[in-house]
């Protein structure tokens, strides 16, 4: 049998992580006073003597004296004093320990809840951060603090423990040392006041420390340790590739019921026992929207509990709970489902089958486990109905009454017209139907139905204006009228709810689909971020702050306020930024509504693919939690965004590599061309000079002058080459680093012509300056170089006696409202012209007229290519045209700059 590849990957993942993760050692006890802290400090002493760097991060200051004595000789970090609402609280200094970075940190009471204002709500989160920072941790915990055992311990001792740690912390600990003493001895210790100081040992404490309780707790603790050992050996078996197989998937349903935690815990324990996948499903029914605050809070706690116990949280929307569960179970391959007994018993009006029966019908292949929980549930149901009753919306009541009044008016009208009673009854049924449509709750139509019957009785049946009826058939009429009205209204309400739900589902699907499409379309990091933020704002209607992350560091945040909202500086203040930085570093969510750094304004999520964080998104919450379905969509959006950012990064890297390769190629080509082009004139210069030095006596003045002229010419040519090379070196990453200043184009052309005339005194270069003053922003030296290259090109390829004309003129473009002008510079020669076939390639690098490099001295086909790069970098255009009657025109244009002169 082969191991499941996923399992293997997971195992590899954890092993890798352990490379830099600290190790966690838990001293585990079954009650206070068994000597956990004592054992922990002893172990710390041992480690210290073995030469390890041990630091005591935190030990409860009210620990027993014998234990406190053990602190002697151990380096203790000072506790952190925080002032919260005027009270000074001392607590564990997380940052202090991380900064100190010892090998082993000793932190007491893993299940402790931190003071408000701390970074994490719970100490175990602090410890996780220490481990992540590579620091080994010694800590203590009692059995009643384990999440999955909380209810069992409570059942035994009658004490509900609020401070709990997720089981995974315990199960993933590298070492667990069980600190165990006989219950009898523990009771003796308590009597001696070793556990609590005499005064504190109240009746309640004594009750807790009864022999029976302690024995039971001890048993649970021992069993839990044994379970953990089992699990480890199981893991070892998986890794050693021995037979291992489980296809179990356990599902538990989330509800706002106070008994729900018990069911969740049972399901979690089963999932562990079966080594099954564990999912928790919440079916959002239409009624769920009316949840009051307490129920909503309980639902959130239950969801959180399931998450802590390792469940994957799923939400589906639907009216028929059983059908939704069955559907989900079928799609996700659920094999077992855990439900409470109240669901199995409770029948509504005896009309509908109960949830369990429905489940059995809808998903016959499913194992259904029923957990006892009913006692409390029914009480709550009554309470809930009572509580919900007073919630009346005024506008709905007014609407209902108006409709009834209208119906009664029409009824009187019909009565006077002597229509039959059936017509009046129909009018009332219609009125109830309308009430059902326009009001928000079923109760209005119910009451409406009842009142309709009463009014009908009161106003239209004999004797009138009484609630009596003479005709013996009336009671039947009333009953039928009531039932008809009620059924009609129920149906209408249900249709309305269905419509609402499908709208919600459609909305969710649409948001996700839109996000996907927009992100696909968005190119570039900024666009992706903007799209993501836009979608989140659309979804949550809250402002969003996005911190892009590069190289593990936060970059400048981008703020996306809601429409018609002004960005608030507080969104990106240092505190908020620190939370974002924490999220980026720890790759976990934090901020408002979470247990970590909950004081902050925003809720921060990492945008990540696996372990790589591409950004941190902050949603500026306004007090309320995200709904489960919002949360799941948010996560999907962020997932999409992260993938897009990853793609973008990869493609950018690829592009950069391509550009670099291209530049490299360019430089290589250039070097090859240069070395050839330098060699020729240098040979001539050195050769001529050596002739002059060796034979100066034998040479005639004319000969000497010729040699000297050659040297001079070649040197000049080299100078020109170097100017071009300098320009080429400024081509970096495909663009140029330009220093742009406004220049008068005529000045620039004149400067270029001064150079050209000096170097080519015999050539006729004509110049037609611009009729008006034209200023353009440019790097003057580069543009001078462009003109020199263009004119040089003309000189090179045209007969000596023909003239070259340089013209500067403006070209108007743009609209009348927004006129734009281009500065055009034209270099026209009367040479042989350029063949049309060659024109498209003339601006290519290393392209020369003859298209061959060898032995053509002036072959460095750099000039025109350089001109093109320079002009393009100036947002200008360059092109080649035919001159009439013969020759070539090179024309380049730069956008002109408007200059305002404010002088009279």
């Amino acid at each position, binding site marked *: 049998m082969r191991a499941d590849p996923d399992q293997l990957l997971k195992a590899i993942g954890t092993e890798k992580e352990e490379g830099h993760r600290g190790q966690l050692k838990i001293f585990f006890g079954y009650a206070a006073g068994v000597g956990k802290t004592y054992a922990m400090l002893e172990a710390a002493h041992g480690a210290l003597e073995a030469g390890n760097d041990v630091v005591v991060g935190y030990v409860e200051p009210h620990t027993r004296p014998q234990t406190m004595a053990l602190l002697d000789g151990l380096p203790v970090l000072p506790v952190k004093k925080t002032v919260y609402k005027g009270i000074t609280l001392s607590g564990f200094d997380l940052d202090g320990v991380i900064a100190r970075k010892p090998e082993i940190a000793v932190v007491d009471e893993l299940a402790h809840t931190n003071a408000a204002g701390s970074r994490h709500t719970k100490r175990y989160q602090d410890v996780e951060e220490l481990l992540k920072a590579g620091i080994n941790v010694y800590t203590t915990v009692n059995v009643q603090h384990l999440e999955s055992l909380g209810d069992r311990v409570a059942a035994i001792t009658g004490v509900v423990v609020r401070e709990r740690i997720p089981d995974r912390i315990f199960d993933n600990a590298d070492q667990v040392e069980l600190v165990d003493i006989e219950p009898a001895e523990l009771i003796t210790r308590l009597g001696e006041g070793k556990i609590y100081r005499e005064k504190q040992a109240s009746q309640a404490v004594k009750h807790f420390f009864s022999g029976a309780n302690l024995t039971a707790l001890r048993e649970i603790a021992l069993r839990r340790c044994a379970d953990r050992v089992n699990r480890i050996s199981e893991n070892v078996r998986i890794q050693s590739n021995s037979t291992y197989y489980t296809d179990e998937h356990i599902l538990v349903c989330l509800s706002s019921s106070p008994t729900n935690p018990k069911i969740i815990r049972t399901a979690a324990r089963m999932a562990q026992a079966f080594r099954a996948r564990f999912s928790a499903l919440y079916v959002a029914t239409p009624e769920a929207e009316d949840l009051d605050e307490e129920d909503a809070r309980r639902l959130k706690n239950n969801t959180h509990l399931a998450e802590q116990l390792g469940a994957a949280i799923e939400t589906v929307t639907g009216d028929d709970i059983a059908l939704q569960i069955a559907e989900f179970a079928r799609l996700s391959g659920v094999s077992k489902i855990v439900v409470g007994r109240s669901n199995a018993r409770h029948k509504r009006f005896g009309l509908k089958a109960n949830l369990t029966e429905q489940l059995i019908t809808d998903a016959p292949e499913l194992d259904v486990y029923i957990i006892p929980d009913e006692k409390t549930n029914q009480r709550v149901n009554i309470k809930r109905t009572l509580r919900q009753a007073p919630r009346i919306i005024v506008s709905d009541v007014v609407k209902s009454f108006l409709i009834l009044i209208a119906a009664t008016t029409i009824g009187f009208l019909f009565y006077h017209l002597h229509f039959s009673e059936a017509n009046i009854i129909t009018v009332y049924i219609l009125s109830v139907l309308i009430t059902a449509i326009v009001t928000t709750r079923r109760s209005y139509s119910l009451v409406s139905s009842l009142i309709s019957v009463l009014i009908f009785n009161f106003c239209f049946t004999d004797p009138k204006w009484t609630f009596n009826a003479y005709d013996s058939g009336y009671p039947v009429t009333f009953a039928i009228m009531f039932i008809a009205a009620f059924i009609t209204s129920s149906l209408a309400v249900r249709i309305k709810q269905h419509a609402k739900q499908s709208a919600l589902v459609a909305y969710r699907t649409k948001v996700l689909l839109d996000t996907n499409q927009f992100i696909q379309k968005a190119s570039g990091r900024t666009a992706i971020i903007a799209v993501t933020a836009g979608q989140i704002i659309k979804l949550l209607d809250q402002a969003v702050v996005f911190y892009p992350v590069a190289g593990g560091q936060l970059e400048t945040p981008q703020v996306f306020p809601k429409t018609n909202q002004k960005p608030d500086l507080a969104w990106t203040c240092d505190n908020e930024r620190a939370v974002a930085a924490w999220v980026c570093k720890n790759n976990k969510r934090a901020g408002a509504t979470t247990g970590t750094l909950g004081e902050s304004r925003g809720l921060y999520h990492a945008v990540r693919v696996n372990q790589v964080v591409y950004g941190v998104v902050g949603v500026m919450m306004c007090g309320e939690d995200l709904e489960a379905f919002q949360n799941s969509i948010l996560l999907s959006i962020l997932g999409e965004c992260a993938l897009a950012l990853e793609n973008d990064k990869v493609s950018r890297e690829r592009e950069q590599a391509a550009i670099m390769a291209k530049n490299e190629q360019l430089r290589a080509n250039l070097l090859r061309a240069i070395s050839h082009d330098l060699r020729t004139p240098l040979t001539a210069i050195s050769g001529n000079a050596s002739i002059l030095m060796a034979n100066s006596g034998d040479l005639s003045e004319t000969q000497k002058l010729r040699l000297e002229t050659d040297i001079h010419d070649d040197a000049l040519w080299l100078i020109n080459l170097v100017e071009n090379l300098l320009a080429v070196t400024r081509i970096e990453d495909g663009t140029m680093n330009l220093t742009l200043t406004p220049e008068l184009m005529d000045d620039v052309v004149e400067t270029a012509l001064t150079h050209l005339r000096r170097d080519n005194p015999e050539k006729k270069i004509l110049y037609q300056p611009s009729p008006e*003053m034209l200023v353009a922003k440019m790097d003057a030296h580069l543009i001078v170089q462009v003109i020199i290259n263009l004119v040089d090109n003309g000189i090179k390829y045209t007969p000596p006696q023909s003239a070259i004309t340089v013209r500067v003129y403006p070209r108007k473009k743009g609209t009348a409202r927004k006129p734009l002008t281009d500065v055009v510079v034209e270099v026209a020669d009367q040479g042989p012209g350029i063949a049309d076939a060659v024109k498209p390639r003339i601006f290519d690098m290393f392209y020369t007229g003859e298209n061959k490099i060898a032995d053509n001295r002036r072959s460095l086909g750099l000039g025109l290519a350089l001109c093109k790069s320079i002009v393009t970098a100036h947002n200008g255009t360059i092109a080649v045209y035919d001159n009439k009657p013969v020759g070539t025109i090179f024309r380049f244009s730069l956008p002109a700059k408007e200059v305002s002169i404010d002088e009279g």
Partner: protein
Amino acid sequence: MKANAICIMIVEDDPAVRNLMTTTMETQHYRFCSARTGEEALAKAVSQKPDIILLDLGLPDIDGIAIIKKIRSWSGAPIIVISARSEDQDKIEALDAGADDYLTKPFSVDELLARLRATVRRIGESRKAKDQDQAVFVNGDLKIDYAAGTVYLRGKELHVTPIEYKLLVLFSHNPGKVLTHTFITKEVWGSNWEGDVASLRVYMATLRKKIEKDPASPQVIQTHVGVGYRMMQSNTST
């Protein structure tokens, strides 16, 4: 003032270029001394009190700009910067630090000599100017009457706008010296915005149309593209 009364200091670390320059000085009968490093240059500037300094910006020990600033702290001797760096920014920095003129390598010997001659003449002018506190500035055909605030070209009064007048006065106070855009805009507008540089270009072009015989080949005000402007001194000036 005679040419040989002038002492020129050549600061250049490259032997070949130094050789070229000293040979040129010898052939033209200038008095000169040379320095290889910045330290040596500063020492000789104190001991020899040169009238003109030819300074290479790329010295092995001290940055050229720093040398200019040091010399400027106690001496007003014209400094002509010689630079192999073609970036305009370097020249502008040197000019703003107090240099008078610049030459870019590779330069021709003729060009070097022309600059030297212009500088020598300017020294003479400014010494004369010191003797008599001038109320009038004359440069070739151009005459500025500071007291009356009027400009004359070939004897005729020239109509100039207030800004053009300010520009002319600024140039007349620094004849022969290359004035950078930054310097000019700061002096005339009191600010140094990009828009000012653009306006400066247009003002200079119109001003030149008024005072140059042939604006296409200016004789009075020379444009140094990317750097600034310089008022040249007419040879006929006395």
